[in-house]
């Protein structure tokens, strides 16, 4: 079931890269990124690739900066951000409860298992028009889209985490005669936290993907819509500027989430080893 996200396996691997090698790897990675950006820059400036359809990265950054400083798209950005935030809050809380219910009710879980496993096989965007009919022409259909896209990842990872609480910790709780609440607060939650956090991370990522995707395809406002609008108007400078902003923003979020997740798992590994 952990299969819903490849990052998990990958993560436990990277924990083993240590010491000076880690810095070398990080250095090489930055070189790869910088080289590819430089290559794009040169390719576009020298017109190896069509400079009209792909503007040089430096101009993208410049355009992004202008867009950011003149504030023309501030409202759209806030709209996207607030919708995604609402979706994230709903998906993480509901997803957590759903995961808990699945853990407590094995029968329910057995019945729903095929659905959970094939949930992400269905392009959820097809439901967007129905959501519009249900919730009206406002931001709620987008929020619900993000919610529906994110909740299952959260639930599955919560379930995964609860299942992986080491037996020995649960036995410790019994030896110490902990009550139900204390066991949950002191044992179960901390022990499953890394997995729950993976769920939160995915919920954040998926919410943004769904909200921006929904805006891009069928909406009248928001960052995704403005990118589609700029594309339709052959306004490539604005389009690439907005993309640049979006990628920088999502990239920064990912970086932070990744770092937190990494340290959580690493702490867990050390605890298990002791």
């Amino acid at each position, binding site marked *: 079931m952990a299969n819903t996200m*490849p990052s998990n396996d990958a993560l436990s691997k990277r924990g083993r890269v240590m010491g000076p090698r880690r810095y070398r790897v990080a250095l090489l990675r930055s070189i790869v990124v910088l080289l590819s950006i430089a290559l794009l820059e040169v390719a576009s400036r020298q017109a190896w690739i069509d400079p009209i359809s792909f503007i040089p990265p430096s101009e993208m950054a410049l355009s992004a900066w202008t867009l950011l400083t003149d504030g023309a798209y501030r409202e759209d950005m806030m709209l996207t951000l607030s919708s995604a935030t609402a979706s994230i809050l709903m998906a993480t809380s509901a997803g957590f409860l759903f995961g808990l219910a699945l853990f407590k009710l094995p029968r329910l879980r057995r019945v729903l298992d095929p659905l959970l*496993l*094939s949930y992400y096989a269905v392009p959820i965007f097809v439901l967007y028009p129905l959501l519009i009919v249900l919730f009206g022409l406002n931001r709620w259909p987008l929020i619900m889209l993000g919610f529906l896209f994110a909740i299952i990842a959260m639930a599955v990872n919560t379930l995964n985490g609860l299942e992986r609480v080491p037996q020995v910790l649960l036995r410790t709780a019994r030896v110490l005669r902990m009550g139900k609440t204390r066991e949950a607060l002191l044992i179960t939650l901390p022990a499953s936290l890394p997995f729950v956090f993976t769920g939160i991370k995915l919920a954040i990522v998926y919410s943004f993907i769904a909200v921006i995707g929904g805006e891009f395809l069928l909406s009248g406002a928001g960052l995704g819509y403005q990118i589609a609008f700029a594309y339709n108007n052959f306004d490539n400078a604005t389009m690439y500027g907005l993309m640049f902003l979006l990628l920088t923003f999502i990239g920064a979020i990912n970086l932070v989430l990744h770092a937190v997740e990494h340290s959580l798992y690493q702490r867990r590994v050390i605890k298990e080893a002791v």
Partner: protein
Amino acid sequence: MSAHVSERIPTRRQAKPSSWMDTVVLIAGILLLWQLSSWALGTEVLPGPARTLTQLQREFADPDFGAHLAETSKAFAWALLIAVAGGIGLGLVLGARRLAGDVMEPLLIALYSIPKIALYPIILLVFGLGISAKVAFGVIHGIIPIAIFTMTAVRNIRPVYIRSIRAHRLSPWQGAMHVLIPATVPEIVAGLRIGFSLTLLGTLLGEMFASQRGIGHLLMLAIDRNNPPTIMALALLLFLFATAVSIALLRWDRHLRH
């Protein structure tokens, strides 16, 4: 390929009868919920199962439908083929070369988590309007999970396999075909399952924006004309297709792991 796996006899027979019951309960539950919400919201907002099925029949009877379905199938098949071949190839290389893998892995994960739909205009500008843009968009969705799964599998392979590649002096190609791929089939299938759904998603999204043909385009038309029965019928079609393939791949995956 599956010779070393099939000798293990599946031992979990007793779980069978109740699992059929579970499936029946699940399907009945979904149908019931669907029908109830349809009644609650009104059939013109959310058509019920029966109405959706008749609409699906009507869609299939439509003379243009075949061409749209063929277009989507063609785009999806190409995208899947390229994503699988490319993903496995990339995963093998990054898995076998540890340094390259360490350097590239976070970049792949970062690519996996950006909203790629916002980058679709670039694909359109590069590939032009038409089927190649859809294929490319499907590929960039599907290739990354397959590559990540394959890479992780190759890294966790038993060292004796790697040594035997060296002992037999296999070329990289032979080593991949005779040792690495057979040894990592279960993980590749697991990656394939996710890659499959994401490729489908990518292809459909590609058709929903700036396209004149395909199931995604039909969906977009139905949305513009506010035609819930068609939306539901197409959603059902996609749902059934995606779920069927996903379950088949899952079965295969479980079979390989036993």
